[in-house]
């Protein structure tokens, strides 16, 4: 009998050399892992540039063995991604890796504009229903009634608005080729989400339009739950508000 390795960190994974780490059970690490998996399976490691926004989700860019702009100014991830994509005349595969706050609060204008332009980039939004980095404040994705440090009585839509549904919102945009929402709270969802990511990257490889994948991601530190409790919360609270699936999958846009 011989022992062979069947699974370790993905090929394009890289141990972070940064003093910044993520909390125990933070699923942003799984988001990074999935990206690496998808990149490895598509064989595009050497040609991919990752742009991450500021936030816990941005730390993911430390964990990939690909060229990366790590933690660009908050919310400007799609703009920086656009800059590099255009500078290199469309050649590299450019991934914008964002937290939900980065993507659809301060970054809403950048995302919408990239979508209007049909910018050939892939946007991954890690949705942990709060601002992880700064200590758990309201995000556009915070659920109604969810307690955060800036909605201490729970999110009241009359004052703080409604949860943002980003892939759904992107569907009518002509420039958007792909929009999906996944989760990593079960092995099945892990695999499904990986397929979404690969499909999204493929749209970019095929030069069709902007592709977008949202991934629900546990934040034990700010949900004030154990990691395993977080998985349940995702299943019972988040997924009903944020249904998983592909919302758009266009072979061409015009």
């Amino acid at each position: 009998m011989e022992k062979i390795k069947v699974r370790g960190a993905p090929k394009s994974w890289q141990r972070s050399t940064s003093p910044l780490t993520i909390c125990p059970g933070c699923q942003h690490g799984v988001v990074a892992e999935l990206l690496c998996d998808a990149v490895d399976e598509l064989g595009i490691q050497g040609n991919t540039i990752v742009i991450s926004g500021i936030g816990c989700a941005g730390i993911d860019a430390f964990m990939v063995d690909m060229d990366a702009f790590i933690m660009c100014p908050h919310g400007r991830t799609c703009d920086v991604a656009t800059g590099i994509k255009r500078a290199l005349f469309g050649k590299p595969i450019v991934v914008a890796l964002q937290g939900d706050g980065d993507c659809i609060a301060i970054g809403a204008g950048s995302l919408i504009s990239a979508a209007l332009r049909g910018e050939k980039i892939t946007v991954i939004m890690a949705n942990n229903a709060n601002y992880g980095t700064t200590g758990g404040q309201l995000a556009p994705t915070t659920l109604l009634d969810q307690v955060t440090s800036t909605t201490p009585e729970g999110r009241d839509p009359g004052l703080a608005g409604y949860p943002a549904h980003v892939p759904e919102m992107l569907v009518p945009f002509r420039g958007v080729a792909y929009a999906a929402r996944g989760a990593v709270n079960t092995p099945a969802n892990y695999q499904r989400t990986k397929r979404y990511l690969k499909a999204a990257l493929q749209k970019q490889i095929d030069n069709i339009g902007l592709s977008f994948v949202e991934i629900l991601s546990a934040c034990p530190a700010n949900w004030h739950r154990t990691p395993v409790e977080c998985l349940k919360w995702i299943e019972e609270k988040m997924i009903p508000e944020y249904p998983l699936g592909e919302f758009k999958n266009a072979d061409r846009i015009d």
Partner: protein
Amino acid sequence: MTRGEISIDERYCLGCGYCVHFCARGCIVIPGDRFTTMGYLLPVFINLERCNACAVCAWMCPHQAIEVYKYVESGQNEPEDISSG
């Protein structure tokens, strides 16, 4: 039946417990009296007999602390990585 084994790297494990939760075969436990180098509760692989190298524990580990091995007849050529399940 396939037999497998995992190794947990104490330097990277943060004791979140996902591997324990997700191993459908109950191969991993957190004894509670063992700690990682960073002081977190360390999970331990306990069930060499039941592990089938499905790699789910490794997928779900956010901190890439797990490696999964599979026992094969010597010389047999297996796919390198079954992660794409």
